[in-house]
């Protein structure tokens, strides 16, 4: 049986030359993502904003959204969002946080139950009070920062500081672009999104570390090789692994996205974007070439013969 070779042996792509395009593109995309965050914003879910999320299933055929909207709108609970969620019988109701502290949230849920009556099944009710939501957000942000810091320290011990810094720049780039993606798609930004961001971080690092490992090995083996050639060789040698791994991860994520149901839909969509699109691009086109600028292998010919004017 002939085995599948997605990437042929001995590829010789000049990845480093592409940095003249990839760096400006990444800078531009990062600026775009940051301005999206500030001007378009994230769609904060109830975990961080407080409020109520109620998933109901109509017992008698497809749900009548306009009727439900009318009866819930009459309750005077401020902004009430209704959205069909998966099947036509299922409706997701979002109600913003009620003024008047934690007890007021519970009263509002009671009112909704009263208004919708017994025609619906309550599949999910989530109520997050104002104090809890504030804490969850700060935990999330602190957690993300803490994770980056821990990983940095580890990389600093295992490699040289330039590698740790390069990995960090690549990481922040991943996180920033994924946040931009979340802003464009307006998926709910909640605790699960923080989990997605952290996983993207882990995966992207995993990939970066594999390439860095190879670069370190090459640095030891070839003392004279020009830096760009060495980086190109390292990326090319690990290319087959990168592609195969990302195909398998994409297959797993695709299964989750298609069959995992609505509950983890935004989670897997974000992961697919962050891990497969951004993560791969970053380790090849950002994490590796940035080492040139961070001064890894100074004393070598920084530029290969072909790069010289």
């Amino acid at each position, binding site marked *: *049986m002939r*085995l599948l*070779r*997605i990437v042929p*042996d*001995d590829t010789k792509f000049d990845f480093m030359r592409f940095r003249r395009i990839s760096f400006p593109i990444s800078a531009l995309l990062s600026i775009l993502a940051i301005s999206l965050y500030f001007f378009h914003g994230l769609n904060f879910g109830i975990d961080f904003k407080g409020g109520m999320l109620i*998933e109901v299933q109509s017992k008698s055929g497809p749900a009548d959204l306009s009727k439900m909207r009318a009866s819930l709108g009459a309750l005077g609970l401020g902004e009430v969002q209704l959205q069909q969620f998966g099947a036509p019988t299922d409706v997701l109701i979002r109600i913003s946080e009620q003024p008047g*502290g*934690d*007890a007021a*949230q*519970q009263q509002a849920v*009671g009112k909704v139950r009263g208004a919708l009556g017994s025609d619906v*099944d*309550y*599949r999910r*009710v*989530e*109520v997050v*009070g104002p*104090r*809890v939501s504030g804490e969850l957000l700060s935990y*999330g942000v602190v*957690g993300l920062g*803490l*994770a980056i810091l*821990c*990983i940095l320290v*580890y990389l600093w011990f295992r490699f040289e500081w330039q590698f740790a810094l390069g990995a960090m720049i690549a990481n922040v780039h991943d996180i920033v672009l994924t946040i931009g993606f979340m802003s464009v798609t307006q998926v709910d930004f909640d*605790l*699960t999104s*923080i*989990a997605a961001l*952290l*996983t993207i*971080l*882990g*995966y992207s*690092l*995993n990939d970066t*570390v*594999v390439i860095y*490992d190879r670069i370190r*090995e090459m640095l030891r083996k070839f003392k004279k090789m020009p830096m760009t050639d060495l980086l190109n060789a390292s990326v090319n040698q690990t290319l*087959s692994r990168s592609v*195969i*791994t990302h195909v*398998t*991860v994409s*297959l*797993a*994520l*695709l*299964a*989750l996205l298609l*069959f*995992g*149901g609505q*509950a*983890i839909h935004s989670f897997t969509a974000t992961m697919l974007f962050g891990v497969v699109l951004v993560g791969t691009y970053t380790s090849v086109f950002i994490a590796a070439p940035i080492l040139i600028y961070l001064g890894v292998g100074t004393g070598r010919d920084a530029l290969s013969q072909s790069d010289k004017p």
Partner: protein
Amino acid sequence: MLYFTRWKAAAIVLTALFVCLFAVPNFFPEKTVQSWPKWAQRHMVLGLDLQGGSHILLEVDTKAVRKDMLETLRDDVRRVLRDARVGYTGLAVRGNGAEVRIRDAASLDNALTKLRELSLPLGGILGGSGQRSLDISNDADGLVRLTVNEPAVIERVRQSVEQSIQIIERRVNELGTVEPLIQRQGTDRILVQVPGLQDPTRLKELLGKTAKLDFRMVDTNTSVEAALQGRAPPESEVLYSTTAPKTPYLIEKRVLVSGGELTDAQPGFDQRTSEPIVSFRFNTSGARKFAQVTQENVGKPFAIVLDNEVISAPVIREPILGGSGQISGSFTVQSANDLSILLRAGALPAPLTIIEERTVGPGLGADSISKGKLSSYVGAGMVIAFMLVTYGLFGLFANIAVAINVAMIFGVLSLLNATLTLPGIAGIVLTVGIAVDSNVLIYERIREEVRAGRSPINAIDAGFSRALATILDSNITTFIAAAVLFYIGTGPVRGFAVTLGIGIITTVFTAFTVTRLIVATWVRWRRPQRVPI
């Protein structure tokens, strides 16, 4: 890298087998598993998002605790000074403490000595620190200030949480649910998780009520109308009835008998009207007090007050000497039942507020399980097929190793009695990705070594030893992310972190041992002339 001593190979196989075995109880119905020995009964617990249930986070009202402490302090100061026969003026709660002016400068020292006895050493976690509950200061003209300090408030909140947990346990157990989880979270919070509940409304009603029951006299000297216009005497207050329309009553603040003196409460029906009622019985001292009060007040109305609402205000027709009685107040069967549960369980030391609620109905839970299964099977199927197409025989080895890996994850989860949530399933699917990656790293390295001109056995050996260092490095970084996620996360996110973290450990284990052993066995058996990848 390819040589294993016999006992080492045996140790690897036994370890993997041992861990996998712990996953077995998950595949048998609970009834069957219960007849097995205790150590074999460990299994994964389905999270609330999969089996349905309620997650409710309660917080002790620190403000109410502080207010209660200050009022008690004021009353204590009054009692102490009265007992010591010290004249005083202007006793009041002010800010974080109480202030009082001692009239006679000569008795100031005596008063201070007596008041210092109110300041108790703080026990609990601060025990032995020598800190006391009150800071007492005075100025020259006889003004004494007693301040309740922050550690004392925290200590009281901590005690309230502990008492509340016991009371909540009694209340929740009355609902007859399976394995409710009630635990402290932080200093002032209580987490209640009740699986498999259709409607949490009743649970929330049972949790949210302080259930402070008092028997008090109705003040008949002043009319309610006059009191509502602001002319209520200082020793009485206006309270409203529980039932609509809210009727105001003027009730004396003095408590005749409190709910703490009840020994039993049961729902029942009135023999004449067949209305639902709650009958109760006092302990000895409560019975004595109640008998005395009813003897002295025949013909006058008294009130049964629950959480500052009047349940009923009957007229005392005759002295009640037996120490038992009944409350009737337009109950339904359900509310009579709930009130007796609350009275039996006792009153909470401080009010609790629900600050977070997450409830999943059993229908959604079942849907999530089936979707989780389906997506796992499809994902695994595609990955298996892809590996076979890409690596052939070695792909088969990889698939075997990954299957063992997944079985080991289930084994470890069972061993820890860990909770499996929907994000947890996602974590397992992602682990499959990572586990496959470890094999890919090894095989790609072997391919490279073959291309570099090494002999097959040499190439396989070098491939393993070089790839394993990379696998370790890359997995430790992901593990750090999982650990942080576990540390900061709650509920579902934690479930994800647990499976991801365990998955990384088993992945490293299988890559270093199982995969290597499989390939080594194959090499010894076939003595390959070329590597088939």
